[in-house]
Each structure stands twice: as structure tokens, then as C-alpha cells.
């Protein structure tokens, strides 16, 4: 089946913009990585070839194509190929546990998988292995991205094309990206920050600058590479920036930088002044597509840092528990409406209707669970979470998902996941467990490793005879955290249930 590359066919999509640049400047560099460079024409040819291969294996309009990759050129080719076929991409991390990936493939209803080496170089070497099975995929959403779910299973957020194009075009305008600008691509594809990195250049005639695979595990190497290859634009989490900073030696490696995924502090913004030209702070859950609120920040910096104002096409509403607007300037829960709102959680209508709620006029709002306040300056300020979702090195983690996995172990009575900085200078996960005497850490580690990605693994598993409850009889995370920190600071070994004295 020949693949149509008429931009008109993809009106309102990333592809339309990319195809126009490919026609206008076919010889411009679209993507470069440590093994070479692809022009716009070559990238399009690679994507068309990949699309033809996927099509021959049964992919068709509306398919959901599982794309296993970490990041890089091979992923970009697979993503464009998927969209050329009018199919939806389901990015999966090849380093995540197999059982978790199988669940995601099943839940998303994937009928075709495009898998490649864990770290992709240039296209020719890494054209994906394709496996196909007949499926019932049919809807041309742009992508389905899984996030941590509190009930013990990841949730597949289904995002449509207009939502993605809206936010990326807004970013391109805000950062004033121009043809030829180089934008850094380093984020894992299961994190939606990877989308602006790889697609903002392609809709503005720029170049995707893919970091060498080693960068992900070696901040010193990453920093050295950046000093040799400074970029015009980049996105990064505060955690990543903190790791890079000591090795950047104050060199300006980012002309423009968007910080996102976690709260940006004034101290970090100050530390970044040497290495960043212009700095933006962004906020947004996966459910409303990449980012919903953003602002450029300028010194002098003061905590709390503003997260900005809603991007065009999105609405932000600060509401109380009965969904009424809170008085101006007070903290309330943030709801987001507009073009960025996801179709929902794939295969989970109950979960979808629980958090994608009614908005006046027939639209829907996403209930973020984040607490915010609108300042006198009209800017939004983040005030933490109203529930048990946390960020671990930029990754969104539902503590309930870790607990649900632990509680499936028959010997476990109670399991409570907590976050603490008692032993470290950054938040780490710990799991407090009460279990049948003799239960060991290994009994819990096996299922945790089988079902959860590396960033969700607790740093330590601690056993207690009983976990404290609050007055309503529910296990109290706050009280448990206190116990865990007491134990960590005492430095006592924790290897088995019932080897500790009663702790209350």
C-alpha cells in the first residue's frame, strides 16, 4: 500500500507541519545523533519505508501500534510511520518489566508492535522488528501513554492529534523557535516531555539533537556532550538539571530551557542562571497533553515559583471539594478543560468518568488532584498534591500502585509506601510492611521487580509488627512515614518480619 504524504490529508496534525517542511527544505537536517544525520527528506523516506513495513504486517488506519524504544531516531521514525498510517502510537519502555508491558499492550488493544534495540541510532541500522496480530484497533488517536495508577495498574492516557499540535505550536511560539534551531532529545519516550523534544523542531524546520545513549546513566558524560554540543532549546526535569549542574562548569549549554515534570525552586533557578539563557517553568499532567500552564521566569527568583498561565486552548479552574470556584487568591484543586483534555483512560470508562468530569457547556474537565492558587499577578502557583501521587526524580508515581502490588503477596497484612528525604537529599521511596513472621524482603522484591519499573522500586523494605492507623481506622501514611524515618535514622538492619521489636 503506498503511503500518502499529502500534507492536506493530515490537517491539524504534527505530520501536516512536518510534511510541509520536508517539501520546502528537504535537505535541511531533521535529526542528528552520534551515528549521523538525517535530512527532512531522508527522515520522511525512512518513515514511509517503516509505514510500508508496518502496513505489510497488518497495520491499518486506526491500529494501535506498540513502539518499544527508549528514545532517539528509531523511535521518531516509528512515531511518524504510525501517524502516516493514521494509527495511534503506544510508547513502551523496553527496560520495564515484561509483565507490565504485556498488560499495557493488552489494555491499549495493540494489534501491531514495532520494537527496536533499546537505544536507537540511525534509522538504517535500527528499522524496527515488526510483529503483527489481527486486532480491533480503529480510532486515529495520536498516542496512548501509560502513567502510574493508584489501584495497582498503569492507566493508558489516550491523546488526540489536535491536543498535541496545540501545545507544541504554543511552545514553538513561546520559545520563538526558528528553522535550523537545534533542540535536545534525551527523555524516555514513556514520559510525555519526549514529545516536545522531538516534535517541536519538526514542526518549525529545526533539528532534533539526540543525545548519545550513555547520557541517561552518566550525568558527567551528558554534561561533557552538552558542552561540546550546546542546544538552542531543551526540556528537562529539575532532578535531571540538578544532576547535570556540577558538571556543566557554568557553561551556557541551553539557550532556552523548559523546566517541567516537577516543581522548580528558586534556588535551582538561580543555580541555572549561568547555564541557561532564558528559562520557562511548565506544569501539566499527561491527561491534558504535555503541558497546560507555563511561563517564562526571570530573576530575581523567589519561592514559590509561578507555574504560569494556561496555554491557549486550555482553561484552568480552581475549585473546592463541591466543585465551586474558590475565593480569589486561595488554594483550591486545579481542574483543566479545553482542547488538551484526553479522550480518557483506554479500556477504563469507570476510571475515566471519575476524573474527567462535567464542565458547563457540555465539555469535560480533568480533575488534576493538584492544589494551586492564583496570585495577585494572575499567575498560578503549585501548592502540592491533594492525594498520594508523588514525583520520584521526575517520574509520576502513585503510592497506591506500589502498595497494591505488595498486598498481592499472600503473607502481607498491610503495606504502605512513603516518601522520605531522611537519609538522602532527594525524595526516595520506602515500603513499610506488616506480614506473617518469617516473611523476608526477597518475598516482596520478586513481585515488585516483576510488575513495577525501576523508578518505582522502594529503596528499602521495612518490616513492622503493625502499621499505625488514624482515627477512622485507615492506615495513616503520615504516621507510617514517621516510623519509617525513625527506623532509618536508627540505622537498624531490617531483613525479616518479626525480627523487630514492637514499634508503637
Amino acid at each position, binding site marked *: 500500500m503506498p503511503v500518502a504524504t499529502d500534507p492536506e490529508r493530515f490537517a491539524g496534525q504534527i505530520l501536516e507541519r512536518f510534511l510541509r517542511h520536508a517539501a520546502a527544505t528537504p535537505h535541511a537536517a531533521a535529526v542528528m545523533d552520534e551515528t549521523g544525520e538525517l535530512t527532512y527528506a531522508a527522515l520522511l523516506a525512512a518513515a514511509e519505508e517503516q509505514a510500508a513495513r508496518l502496513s505489510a504486517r497488518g497495520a491499518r488506519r486506526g491500529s494501535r501500534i506498540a513502539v518499544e524504544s527508549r528514545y532517539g531516531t528509531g523511535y521518531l521514525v516509528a512515531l511518524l510511520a504510525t501517524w502516516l498510517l493514521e494509527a495511534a502510537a503506544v510508547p513502551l519502555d523496553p527496560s520495564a518489566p515484561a509483565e507490565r508491558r504485556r498488560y499495557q499492550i493488552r489494555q491499549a488493544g495493540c494489534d501491531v508492535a514495532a520494537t527496536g534495540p533499546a537505544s536507537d541510532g540511525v534509522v538504517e541500522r535500527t528499522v524496527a522488528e515488526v510483529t503483527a496480530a489481527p486486532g480491533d484497533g480503529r480510532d486515529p488517536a495520536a498516542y496512548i501513554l501509560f502513567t502510574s495508577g493508584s489501584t495497582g495498574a498503569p492507566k493508558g492516557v*489516550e491523546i488526540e492529534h489536535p491536543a498535541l499540535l496545540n501545545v507544541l505550536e504554543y511552545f514553538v511560539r513561546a520559545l520563538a523557535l526558528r528553522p535550523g534551531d537545534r533542540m535536545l532529545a534525551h527523555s524516555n519516550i514513556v514520559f510525555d516531555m519526549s514529545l516536545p523534544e522531538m516534535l517541536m523542531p519538526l514542526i518549525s524546520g529545526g533539528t532534533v539533537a539526540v543525545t548519545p545513549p550513555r547520557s541517561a546513566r552518566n550525568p558527567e558524560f551528558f554534561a561533557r556532550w552538552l558542552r561540546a554540543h550546546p542546544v538552542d532549546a531543551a526540556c528537562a526535569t529539575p532532578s535531571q538539571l540538578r544532576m547535570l549542574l556540577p558538571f556543566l562548569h557554568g557553561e551556557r549549554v541551553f539557550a532556552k530551557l523548559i523546566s517541567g515534570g516537577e516543581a522548580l525552586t528558586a534556588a535551582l533557578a538561580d543555580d541555572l542562571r549561568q547555564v541557561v539563557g532564558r528559562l520557562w517553568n511548565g506544569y501539566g499532567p499527561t491527561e491534558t497533553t504535555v503541558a497546560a500552564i507555563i511561563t517564562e521566569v526571570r530573576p530575581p527568583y523567589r519561592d514559590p515559583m509561578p507555574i504560569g498561565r494556561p496555554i491557549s486552548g486550555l482553561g484552568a479552574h480552581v475549585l473546592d471539594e463541591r466543585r465551586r470556584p474558590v475565593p480569589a487568591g486561595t488554594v483550591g484543586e486545579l481542574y483543566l478543560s479545553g482542547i488538551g483534555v484526553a*479522550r480518557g483512560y483506554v479500556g477504563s470508562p469507570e476510571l475515566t*468518568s471519575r476524573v474527567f468530569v462535567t464542565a*458547563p457547556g*457540555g465539555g469535560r474537565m480533568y480533575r488534576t488532584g493538584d492544589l494551586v492558587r492564583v496570585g495577585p499577578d494572575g499567575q498560578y502557583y503549585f501548592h502540592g498534591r491533594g492525594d498520594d501521587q508523588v514525583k520520584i526524580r521526575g517520574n509520576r508515581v502513585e503510592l497506591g500502585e506500589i502498595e497494591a502490588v505488595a498486598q498481592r503477596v499472600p503473607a502481607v497484612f498491610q503495606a504502605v509506601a512513603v516518601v522520605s528525604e531522611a537519609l538522602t537529599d532527594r525524595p526516595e521511596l520506602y515500603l513499610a510492611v506488616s506480614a506473617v513472621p518469617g516473611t523476608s524482603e526477597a518475598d516482596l522484591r520478586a513481585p515488585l521487580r516483576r510488575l513495577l519499573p525501576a523508578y518505582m522500586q522502594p529503596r528499602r523494605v521495612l518490616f513492622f509488627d503493625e502499621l499505625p492507623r488514624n482515627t477512622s481506622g485507615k492506615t495513616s501514611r503520615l504516621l507510617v512515614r514517621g516510623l519509617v524515618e525513625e527506623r532509618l535514622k536508627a540505622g537498624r538492619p531490617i531483613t525479616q518480619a518479626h525480627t523487630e521489636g514492637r514499634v508503637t
Partner: protein
Amino acid sequence: MSEQVNDVQYAVVVNDEEQYSIWAVGREVPAGWHAVGVRGSREECLEHIGRVWTDMRPKSLRVAMGES
């Protein structure tokens, strides 16, 4: 005057795109949404939605694709 959370009755509501949500009974349903006639506890309403909302594509998209 505090609301007894456990006693709140919900209604299943739907919009023109045939997307479902729930709404506390007794408060005016937002414009663009209407009740489908199912009421119950929050969980009962969510369970009903789980049964009836089998195609999560917006109606306009289903129509555009000729599969409505």
C-alpha cells in the same frame, strides 16, 4: 450542615459526544449534559458507566468514520 459523604446520591450524566460522567443528585446538571435516568451511590453509577460506555471515541469522531 456538613455533607454526609456516604449518603450522597449520584446520577449518571452524558454529553452530546456521548461521554459519561457522574453528578451529585439535587444540584443543577451543567449545561450540555443530561441525566440518563440512572441514580445510586458513586460506585453504582461508575459501575453502570463501565457497562454502557463501550466505545470511548467521541460521537462526532465515530460519525466521521462512518461507524456510528
